[in-house]
């Protein structure tokens, strides 16, 4: 069967092409109606997982410097390695719900200060040891220790005490936090035997695959863990990650069939790649977003009118179309979108308006000296072009924006979070509370907009301790409104996760928590 017919078939099964259109185009390719019908029926039946085979993923975002220590993971490839070999207590499902993994259930005291995780029984690590609540406790303790340099240290710092209580591990917080279970799904917090205290980088976890070859920055090979506890996941015998940091090489590899899945497809090639036979481009709305950030405590951005002028002077739709080629969604000057649980969509969308921008600019009384915006290509892909678009739209409102190009080297240590007006990006967080407390709470280390608002802080703490979801949603809406109006954040767009996936890969799910199905492609897909 030729590639084009296969491609058509796959799209029909996914409902992107109608049955009638399929029959018509199949006939055009010289396939009889009876034959086309049989093909379609076979394809529709082929939705049962098939066991075995080797999945090869070509991934950007890995370095020779990567370690297997879960605490130290920071880029994409280590993330995928951990998601493939490890298992955490809980996970965030595609719809934002909490999914139980190594914890069977979770309960809390009514004040949301103490949380009890019931640890699953009969789970085996790759080294044959059985999971105990003690392993969980030790893992959490290791990540709480500053010496471990864990990426999850921020999460762990809120914990006052932890203990094992029979089959339970209980965690007591200093202040109430209704979102604690979500935080335990952080990808650094993979449970290791003995907490990984002795050998943190041995790669032994409780996930569906065990690592057999580890060449950082080159490739990682995994084999199925025979005694994996969850039979609904992990269909492959073998999984291979090839680190391909060069975007063109990655696209060539997936086009020539050397890898089944390639991550980080650039928006500008996504449309072209989608036309290639034998593969499909999958995009899903994510929580990551591109931002321009102003320091609310530094002149001239300490003037609310000037901030509003700049917010009105940006053409979000144009930026989405030209920078992301439409592979994204429009931002609304808050770091939260519909992908988050408890999102309130009643906040009106801020539109590009020359009149309002000019009006606020006049009200700000700015002396007309150029407003310097610092950008670099590393801020986000296309940041320099985005800044140029911003400059042009601001000019229409008479706002003199001046672009300063900064070197990518040292951008994160010298410009971001230091200079008063710069471009940057944020990856998503599992819950609203974490996003706000990472970057918008007055006391946050990463308060990159220097946003100090007592009312906002009070509401944040109030929502955190509130177990009633309706009330929390209302509080979050209030906070969003404050940030939308007062904040130093200009958020033009949320970027999609875009991946190129071979037609041979079945069982793909849209999951925008993190890229490549939140790292679950090796677990949930199979080869046809």
């Amino acid at each position, binding site marked *: 069967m030729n590639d084009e017919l296969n491609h058509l078939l796959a799209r029909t099964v996914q409902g992107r092409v109608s049955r009638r259109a399929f029959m018509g185009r199949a006939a055009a390719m010289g396939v009889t109606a009876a034959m086309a019908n049989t093909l379609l029926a076979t394809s529709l039946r082929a939705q049962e997982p098939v066991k075995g085979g080797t999945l090869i993923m*070509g991934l950007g975002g890995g*370095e*020779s*410097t*990567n*370690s297997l220590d879960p605490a*130290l993971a*920071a880029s994409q490839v280590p993330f995928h390695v951990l998601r493939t070999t490890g298992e955490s207590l809980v996970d965030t499902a595609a719809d934002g719900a909490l999914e139980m993994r190594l914890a069977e259930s979770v309960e809390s005291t009514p004040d949301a200060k103490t949380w009890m995780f019931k640890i699953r029984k009969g789970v085996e690590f790759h080294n044959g040891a059985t999971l105990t609540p003690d392993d969980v406790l030790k893992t959490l303790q290791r990540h709480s220790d*500053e*010496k471990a*340099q864990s*990426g999850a*240290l*921020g999460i762990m710092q809120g914990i006052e005490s932890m203990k094992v209580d029979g089959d339970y591990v209980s965690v007591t917080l200093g202040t109430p936090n209704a979102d604690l279970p979500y935080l335990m799904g952080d990808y650094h917090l993979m449970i290791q035997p003995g907490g990984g205290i002795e050998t943190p*980088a041995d790669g032994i976890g409780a996930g569906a695959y065990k690592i057999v*070859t580890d*060449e*950082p*920055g*080159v*490739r990682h090979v995994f084999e199925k863990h025979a005694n994996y506890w969850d039979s609904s996941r992990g269909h492959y015998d073998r999984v291979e990650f*090839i*680190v*391909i*940091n*060069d975007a*063109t*090489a990655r696209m*060539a*590899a997936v*086009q*020539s*069939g*050397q*890898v089944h899945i390639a991550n980080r497809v650039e928006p500008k090639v996504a449309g072209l790649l989608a036309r290639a036979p034998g593969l499909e481009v999958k995009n899903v709305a994510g929580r990551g977003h591109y931002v321009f950030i102003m320091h609310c405590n530094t002149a001239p951005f300490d003037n609310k009118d000037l901030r509003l002028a700049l917010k009105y002077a940006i053409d979000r739709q144009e930026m989405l179309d030209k920078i992301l080629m439409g592979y994204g969604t429009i931002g609304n000057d808050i770091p939260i979108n519909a992908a988050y649980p408890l999102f309130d969509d009643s906040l009106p969308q801020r539109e590009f308006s020359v009149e309002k921008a000019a009006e606020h600019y006049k009200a700000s009384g700015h002396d007309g000296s150029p407003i310097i915006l610092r950008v670099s290509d590393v801020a986000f892909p296309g940041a320099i072009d985005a800044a140029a678009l911003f400059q042009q739209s601001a000019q229409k409102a008479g706002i003199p924006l001046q672009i300063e190009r900064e070197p990518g*080297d*040292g951008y*994160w*240590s*010298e410009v*971001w*979070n230091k200079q008063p007006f710069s471009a940057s990006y944020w990856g998503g967080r599992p819950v609203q509370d974490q996003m706000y407390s990472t970057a918008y709470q007055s006391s946050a*280390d*990463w308060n990159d907009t220097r946003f100090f608002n007592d009312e906002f802080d009070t509401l944040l703490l109030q929502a955190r301790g509130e177990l009633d979801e309706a009330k929390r949603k209302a509080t979050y809406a209030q906070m969003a409104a404050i940030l939308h109006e007062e904040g130093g954040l200009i958020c033009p767009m949320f970027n999609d996760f875009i991946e190129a996936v071979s037609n041979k890969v079945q069982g793909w799910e849209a999951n925008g928590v993190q890229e490549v199905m939140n790292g679950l492609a090796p677990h949930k897909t199979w080869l046809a």
Partner: protein
Amino acid sequence: MNPILKLLVQRIALGLVLLFAASVLIFVGTTILPGDVAQNILGQGATPQALENLRAQLGLNDPAYVRYFNWLGGVLQGDLGTALTNGQDIATSMGGRLWNTLFLAFWAAVVSVPLAILLGLIAVRYRDRWPDKVISTITLATVSVPEFLLGYIAIFLLSVTFPIAPSLAMINDSMSLGAKLQAISLPVLVLVLTVLGHMMRMTRAAILNVMQSAYIETAELKGLRPFTVIARHALPNAIAPVVNVVMLNMAYLVVGVVVVEVVFVYPGMGQYLVDHVAKRDVPVVQACGLVFAAVYISMNILADVISILTNPRLRHPK
């Protein structure tokens, strides 16, 4: 003492001095890079306490010259240290990468050097006629196109449009020699095209220079075939400049192929070095720099020695 032996010892001693000077330069260069290792390892979210701990652990608080001599002492004992970022032994992890780089460079050289010399001879034989022009045009074109573009063109034509060679040059120890050679076919092709022009033109120019000599005329008058005149009489006397340019290109094949490695995802030294530069992993950068300097210096010594040995005037100085 035999003058040739003396010369060899002299050259090698000079090379070592040069290598020492290079090590100082590498160390100074890596120390004045902007940014701080601890900051780069821990990322934007590092707390001051964590930064301080890591700095103390890595010995970053010592003065630079103390760190330099500690490092030099280790290197002299064959200990390149451990990578700051992932704690792996540098000698072990770099060894595999270096081997891969040499493997690729070796096969590129095996193809390109004889080919370049042969094409140079042909170009001289048919000087200013169409074979010369075709060879010159094509090699000039391939040497002028940036190698990443050549790489992408090769991938587009040979692995996407007509899938005959893999676009990923992934090799590992479990592969047979044949499988490895197939995997590296495209990078070898690109490297050959990149270095061919330079070597071929140098060969052509050097031989043409010799062709003006009286003894060539004699050889022609003896009635020798033109190709024999070139290969037997002209080439040996043009060896010195040819060897020099060949060695320069061989050194380039080892230290300058980072772009080709990235395009073809080849696990060689270049990518390894770039990753560690980005993370300010100073010991690894220093070790790579030292290896690259050693390759360059030894290739140049080799070129010098060969030119001297092939030149009787230099072999028997008055």
